[in-house]
């Protein structure tokens, strides 16, 4: 397996509670990896350790290494904004920035050096198409992003995240706030995008995991229980707790 992200000896503490216990995991490149588990097991914490979002909460303490492209992203001389540029985050509740649709997508592009002009316009169009939103907004770029429906907003957040040209896409239950049609839309986008991006998703919907996953990671109470390619995981789970979870008991 071609590994993109290596997580080594990761331990995360929120004040006195240990949220993640000794995680050792390799995440494959250009595949959809799904993190499963009952609520409170640390899925989101694990996800947020990849783009260094944990440090936004006070009282968080992280030990261990997360290695992307050969470098430990928790190294003191790494610029955290570079790390976040590499990994785009799609949150559960879509959060458009207080700007027009165009500016939302262009935000990341402008941050990282693109100037106004035709090339910027082309890129904005390109990423809106990649997110499947282009047709619906092509004649109202300058209207406020706040006016879009929630499904459209989530696709806008996807376009925005793609525009920073990341290598990794992180999704924190990206469809749970959406109606089924919009959810399907996002899922098909992700399925297409995995050809060029390493995607890590957190979900509590087993059926979504079955639909999307190439690789599955199962967590329980902060510990890594089992991880395997999707077929193997769903058809032949090795651990007791995995089986209980798949049968709906925990």
């Amino acid at each position, binding site marked *: 397996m071609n590994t993109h992200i290596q997580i080594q000896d990761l331990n995360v503490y929120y004040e006195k509670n240990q949220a993640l216990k000794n995680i050792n995991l390799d995440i494959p490149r250009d595949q959809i990896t799904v993190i499963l588990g009952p609520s409170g097991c640390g899925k989101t914490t694990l996800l947020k350790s990849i783009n260094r*979002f944990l440090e936004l909460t006070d009282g968080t303490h992280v030990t261990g290494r997360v290695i992307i492209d050969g470098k430990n992203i928790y190294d003191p001389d790494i610029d955290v*904004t570079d790390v976040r*540029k590499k990994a*785009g985050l799609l*949150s559960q509740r879509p959060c458009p*920035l*207080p700007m027009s649709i165009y500016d939302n997508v262009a*935000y990341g592009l402008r941050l990282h050096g693109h100037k106004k002009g035709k090339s910027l316009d082309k890129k904005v169009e390109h990423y809106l198409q990649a997110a499947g939103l282009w047709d619906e907004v092509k004649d109202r770029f300058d209207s406020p992003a706040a006016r879009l429906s929630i499904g459209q907003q989530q696709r806008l957040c996807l376009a925005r995240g793609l525009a920073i040209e990341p290598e990794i896409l992180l999704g924190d239950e990206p469809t749970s706030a959406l109606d089924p049609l919009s959810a399907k839309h996002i899922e098909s986008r992700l399925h297409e995008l995995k050809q060029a991006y390493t995607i890590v998703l957190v979900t509590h919907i087993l059926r979504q995991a079955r639909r999307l996953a190439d690789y599955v990671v199962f967590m329980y109470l902060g510990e890594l229980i089992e991880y395997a390619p999707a077929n193997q995981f769903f058809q032949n789970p090795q651990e007791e707790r995995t089986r209980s979870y798949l049968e709906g008991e925990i």
Partner: protein
Amino acid sequence: MKKKSLFQRKHIEECFYMFWMSFSFLLLIGILIFILITVISKGLPALDIAMLTQTPKGGFYLGKEGGILNAILGSLYLAGGATILSIIISLPLALYLGSYIQNTKWADVVRLSLDVLWGIPSIVYGAFGFTIMLFFGLRASLLGGIIVLTLLEIPIMCRAMEEVVRLMPEELSHASLALGANRMETATKVVARQALPGLMTAILLAFGRAIGDAASVLFTAGFSDQIPNSIFRPAASLPLAIFFQLGTPFPEVQERAYASALVLTVIVLTISFGSRWLAQRLSRFSIK
């Protein structure tokens, strides 16, 4: 029988208090209207083009001719200059307190100081300003007035701004940070945008307070018949124009006081209502 009287008592009590509540409520509104009517009825007859476009001729206290242009422009320069200086300090400070160091002990200390400054009456700012001016050998002037008004405005503006910034949902800054922006970019491009209506309201609020203040400029800006042409000369202001010209034996001079009162009230009214309208217009892009 007992039940009935208890029932009656309950409701008599209710009516009694309802009466007093409605009365108080109407009293406050009535007084507001009373004040406005007093100011308008005295000021309107005194207003004409000459009043608004000329400076007092023959001295503001004795001269019978001319108008209040000195005070109108003086007030605009004083409050305008102070507001601009105040924005330079308050806006970054509010963004810093509201989003960078929100919940730290240092933020609490700074906020406490701002609250203390907010409560200081303008006469004390005036006395302090006067002391500082003496120390530096400055005379009563436009500059002195602007500096003291800036000190007066900063706590008001900063407090109001910080409140708006703090109310912002965290997800917005997170969304920006997730795209690889650093704190400064997030604060200026996202937080400030979202909070823009509230920030404008804060600015107008502080401006309105400054333009109406007399006690602080009394010591520090002086008064003059002329429109200030240098920041080192004294400047007239509308509140002092009222104060100095009200108690005069000459009715023409008194007219100037009434006109100043009306102009000042109209300015404050416009700001009060205008800021609401402006806030609504500016919230076009804000995420609810």
